[in-house]
């Protein structure tokens, strides 16, 4: 019961229907939607952007935000590729170093927020410039080309239409859901996000919850950056530069409350499917490339507004449902 509720079934069901409808429309309108290549490319984008959205969702569930997800992803990608290309560091070591760096960046965000009590919006806006600045200082905006072949191969690998890198995303998503709903620290994190005062008066570990959320956020951003590097076959300094909008759009369309306390994993997944469909649809119908950004922005805003209205209507309905009013006044 708890678990279902955490996943916000009302929102998720609506999104699922919209997703299915979108797929149906796209496959009718443009037969190439169902082509192996298109499904592979779309699935690969989805695998990366979903991690980006989850990186935001975990921090939103704490009632905070992380504007540095993109710059963490970018910094990690160029550090990993730089280590491998410039210094010949073995692949596993470079990847471990990169993922650790992501976690460290997240912990830095968390510590700053916890210590200074300054709004996370301002702090992570600041750290995003710091991380992006490091990236630029190191690369001078030049990519690290010729990353090891096994990495690029991973980025292109597929089983039928399914990109292999989707496996990473699926596993991480399941682990995250399990953490939030089944592990004590995850529950504590949600409790802190939902009612910080109550959590404090109950003696919950506020600092550990804050640091954990930001560390997970940094880690997921790092994995996303690594996967995009693999897909591009090079350490591009611009990796992550466009992630801010999708990072918020996913959780918010998926039903997360900016005030914290909710972590709609399923909703976020379905919302990112919707965003990928929008993205892909615009490519397939050959929308003018110079107008694509405008259209994506407008469609995502539309989806957010739609999601909000529906949610508030559901809430209003719940509040006045006969059973709810009858409860008031009867205690036995």
């Amino acid at each position, binding site marked *: *019961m708890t678990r279902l509720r955490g996943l916000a079934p009302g929102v998720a069901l609506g999104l699922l229907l919209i997703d299915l409808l979108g797929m149906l429309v796209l496959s009718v309108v443009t037969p190439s939607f169902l082509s192996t290549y298109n499904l592979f490319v779309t699935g690969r984008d989805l695998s990366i952007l979903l991690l980006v959205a989850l990186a935001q969702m975990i921090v939103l569930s704490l009632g905070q935000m992380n504007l540095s997800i993109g710059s963490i992803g970018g910094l990690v990608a160029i550090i990993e590729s730089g280590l491998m290309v410039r210094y010949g560091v073995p692949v596993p070591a470079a990847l471990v170093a990169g993922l650790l760096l992501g976690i460290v960046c997240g912990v830095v965000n968390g510590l700053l927020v916890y210590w200074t009590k300054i709004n996370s919006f301002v702090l992570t806006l600041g750290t995003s410039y710091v991380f992006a600045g490091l990236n630029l200082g190191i690369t001078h905006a030049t990519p690290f080309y010729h990353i090891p072949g096994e990495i690029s191969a991973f980025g292109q690998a597929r089983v039928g239409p399914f990109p292999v890198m989707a496996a990473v995303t699926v596993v991480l998503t399941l682990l995250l859901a399990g953490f939030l709903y*089944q592990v*004590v620290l995850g529950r504590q994190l949600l409790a802190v996000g939902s009612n910080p*005062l*109550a959590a404090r008066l109950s003696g*919950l570990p506020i600092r550990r919850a804050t640091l954990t959320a930001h560390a997970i956020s940094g880690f997921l951003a790092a994995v996303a950056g690594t996967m995009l590097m693999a897909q591009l076959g090079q350490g591009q300094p611009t990796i992550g530069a466009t992630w801010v909008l999708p990072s918020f759009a996913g959780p918010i369309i998926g039903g997360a409350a900016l005030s914290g306390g909710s972590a709609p994993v399923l909703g976020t997944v379905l919302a990112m499917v919707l965003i990928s469909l929008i993205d892909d649809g615009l490519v397939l119908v050959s929308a003018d490339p110079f107008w694509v950004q405008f259209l994506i922005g407008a469609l995502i805003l539309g989806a957010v507004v739609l999601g909000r209205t529906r949610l508030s209507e559901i809430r209003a309905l719940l509040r006045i449902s006969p059973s709810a009013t009858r409860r008031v006044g*009867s205690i036995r």
Partner: protein
Amino acid sequence: MSAEPNPLPPEVRLEVSGIRKQFPGVVALDDVSLRLRAGEIHALLGENGAGKSTLIKILTGVYQPDEGEIRLDGSPVRFVSPRSALAAGISVVHQERNLIPQFTVAENILLERIPTRGLQLVDHSAINRLARPWIEMVGLDAAPATPVVELSVAQMQLVEIAKALSLQARILLMDEPTAAITPHEVGYLFRILGDLRRHNVALVFVSHKLEEVFDLCDRVTVLRDGKNAAADVAVAGLDRDRLVTYMIGRAEVIAELPPKPVPGEPMLELAGLTTEGGDAVLNLVLRKGEVLGVYGLVGAGRSKLAKTLVGEVKVTGGEVRVRGKKTRINGFREALEKHRIGYVSEDRKQEGLILLHSVRANTSITIWRHLRTLGQWIRHSAEDAAILPSLRQLDVKAQSLSQSVGTLSGGNQQKVSIAKWLAAKAEILIIDEPTVGIDIKTKNALHELIWDLAANGKSILLISSDMPEVIRLSDRIVVMRNHAIVGELPNTHQYDEMSESIMARLS
């Protein structure tokens, strides 16, 4: 206040003495003592700002006292954090609900010690199993897996009590537990507190309602201006007047309200109104110069009714007539500009006032549109001329018009939130819970002021969950329950008789 070094009598569980707590610029507590015995309910009384919450925060380890001693079972203790007070068996049910709404009843009860099975995995069945006895002990009729959002306010309170008991609380502090629950639920709560008393828990009961103190409590400690006005006095030997004298330093004088003219023509009529907010059919008539009391508990739909009248909630059926003419009200601005209806929100701090802004800006905010000159400027002289009469009429005490409203006392804040509607020449005032969080002295002044407004021809819809207030001020009383008006009573101003007939409509 005995200073002899007598050994503590065995039944004393917690003894607090000589407590002093200073904040920058204020002495919140000065030489305060409190003595709690096992198996007793101890009332802690005092007006707002008397120091009750500071004392509770000291007992629960949120604040540390500057001076003084706390002895638990005879030996001195220090509570350095909420955790250490909890560990010593002191729990508190706060005024604000301290539950995680999305979590289940059981999870909330066991929040800080969620049972696990290996690898820190949450053991859901163990949570429900371990919480069940506590849920049953407080008589809460809800499954352990029920999410807290689905409970009523009274049920949430029971969850908090269950949580406190599950922490092996030997001392339970209840901060205004009856503020938001029905009389029926209060009765039930009192039975549970009685049970706890029999189980030798030491209870502290903070309340503003003196009737409840006499019903429930064994002994009482009263704070006034941060000092003990009464320490550990048996309730049995007290009467209401005596207790009020402790609280406000003098006997309470409730002046008879002067007669006012008989209400005139109908100003506002609702006929068969239904709203988007789920209100059932509403019928009422408010006349010129009348105070119409709307009594109902929190959640009965009173504020929804108010918001409907200022166009914030959509009307789905029925009729609204203002001054005899059928109309629609679309939003605050139209309510004020066209119908002269003003709404004094129950939530002064969030909805009624802009705390950081000046008295001037808060009062004139309703008439800025009319004050602006051609260049969209607002001249202070014109502004002051427009607002001063209302501020004077209500006798607002402020150092200057530029003083920020947040630094005024609660009573003066309330006056400013009424003054802004008077400045805008509102004739119908909807006043929602005017004296919540306001102390006895100021409460009387506000009552006289509301009465005076009606005597001078304003029509007042007085929404309140404070029964003595409604009975004192109203010409007639309508009772709301479950978003419907369940009765309309002429007011005889006889408390016992009126309260009985109001209660009859509620159950």
